[in-house]
């Protein structure tokens, strides 16, 4: 059974968002890591770059697949999880915790309304996830 924490918001591209004040922590969902399989490489953005909702900002590669990671919200990257460079498998073992990818300072908190809640995301993945 996939883990979909209630307190998070989700994108249709299988990223999650944890909002605290005007900052959003972003990662990929348990469903996404499970579909990808063993993650062996992560390409992270630089700290301070601007990201745009719906645009690719990172790459996660498993043994078999290359997956673009899309920003669920627009803003400025204020923290990058550099630990993933040496331990990309953390995305598999703890996708909502130590497997976080970046923190984004929100440019437009109104964008959060476009994201799914956990029930909406579970419905999406139950339908096949695409």
């Amino acid at each position, binding site marked *: 059974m996939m883990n979909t924490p209630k307190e998070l918001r989700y994108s249709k591209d299988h990223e999650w968002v944890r909002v605290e004040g005007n900052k959003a922590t972003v990662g990929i969902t348990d469903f996404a890591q499970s579909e990808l*399989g063993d993650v*062996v*490489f992560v*390409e992270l953005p630089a700290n301070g770059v601007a990201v745009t909702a719906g645009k690719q900002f990172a790459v996660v590669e498993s*043994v*078999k697949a*290359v997956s673009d990671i899309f920003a669920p919200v627009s803003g400025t990257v204020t923290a990058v999880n550099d630990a993933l460079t040496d331990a990309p498998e953390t995305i598999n073992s703890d996708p909502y915790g130590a497997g976080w990818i970046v923190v984004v300072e929100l440019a437009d908190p109104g964008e959060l309304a476009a994201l799914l809640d956990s029930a909406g995301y579970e419905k999406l993945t139950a339908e096949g996830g695409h």
Partner: protein
Amino acid sequence: MAEKTPLYETHRQYGGKIVEFGGWLLPVQYEGILAEHRAVREKAGLFDVSHMGEVTVKGPGALAYLQKVVTNDVTKLADGQVQYTPMCYPDGGTVDDVLIYRYGADDYLLVINAANIAKDWQWLQENAVGAAAALENVSAATAELALQGPLAEAILAKLTDAPLATLGYYRFLPSATVAGRPAMVSRTGYTGEDGFEIYCRPEDAAALWEAIMAAGRPLGLAPAGLGCRDTLRFEACLPLYGHELSAAISPVEARLTKFLSFAKGEFNGRAALARQVEYGPPRKLVGFALTERGLARAEYPVVADGRRIGTVTTGSYAPTLDKNLGMALVEAGYAKVGGKIAVEIRGKEVAAVIIPRPFYKREGKK
């Protein structure tokens, strides 16, 4: 419409993640590619390779026919022996790479790649016109399991009285009994480990799978999917048709010249391949390691001296070596071990160095 092997339901019961591969529905993984890869290197893994094709060649002209269609010298085979050989077009391009099993002087089995069955069958028949050899495509009547890893012999020995301990590499037992079922057992594989390939009737495949799993579980045997089959063969630098070999890639370019016999007489592709050997092929297959962060994938461009010099044929994280490696077909002038190249990954050049192949070789190879 993708086809199912006789083990399709078994894979689902074992939690296999089913994908389509070469027109077949097969598990890419069960527990995970890295865990299964490790199981095969350290203990053992069980694969369903029933998608592979099988063609029998029988008759007084069988040997002469095979000598013409494949590049290796089939007269070197004795009964009970297996040979690896490319099969080429007249221009030297590769139709397929196959295993030949000799049952008798007039009785052979070819094992061919799943994705090539229709093409190979047509090619084999076209070349059989006028030959005193009868061909039969027995692919649908043949299932195949691969038990691979250092503990493969200990596991299989629990299920058969067949003399596995004295069965050498690339030798086979035509009529063994495994777990009470008739099977042909060969000491062959596609993982770089010791192991066996077990050919059986489709209706016996599920029972054999269960018997092998039951015998092997206590020793660490894991069901293994196509994902680790690819990473295992990649580390051992075994070619995969469609990547390291194709109609546009000759065995000489793929560094398989030791499987060509120019001494045996005429065969398909002989003149073209002999020219490539004499003058050197324009391109050569190399192994490389990325020396900067990145992961190379098939089809990525290879560059050097500011221009494109080749293409990645397979690239992957190599689990046993914990390195990001690849194989590439490059201009022959750049094929030297130690040479500096770069792989273009998402528009950026990532530095790499050419390294010796294979990347992985097991200890005490039989």
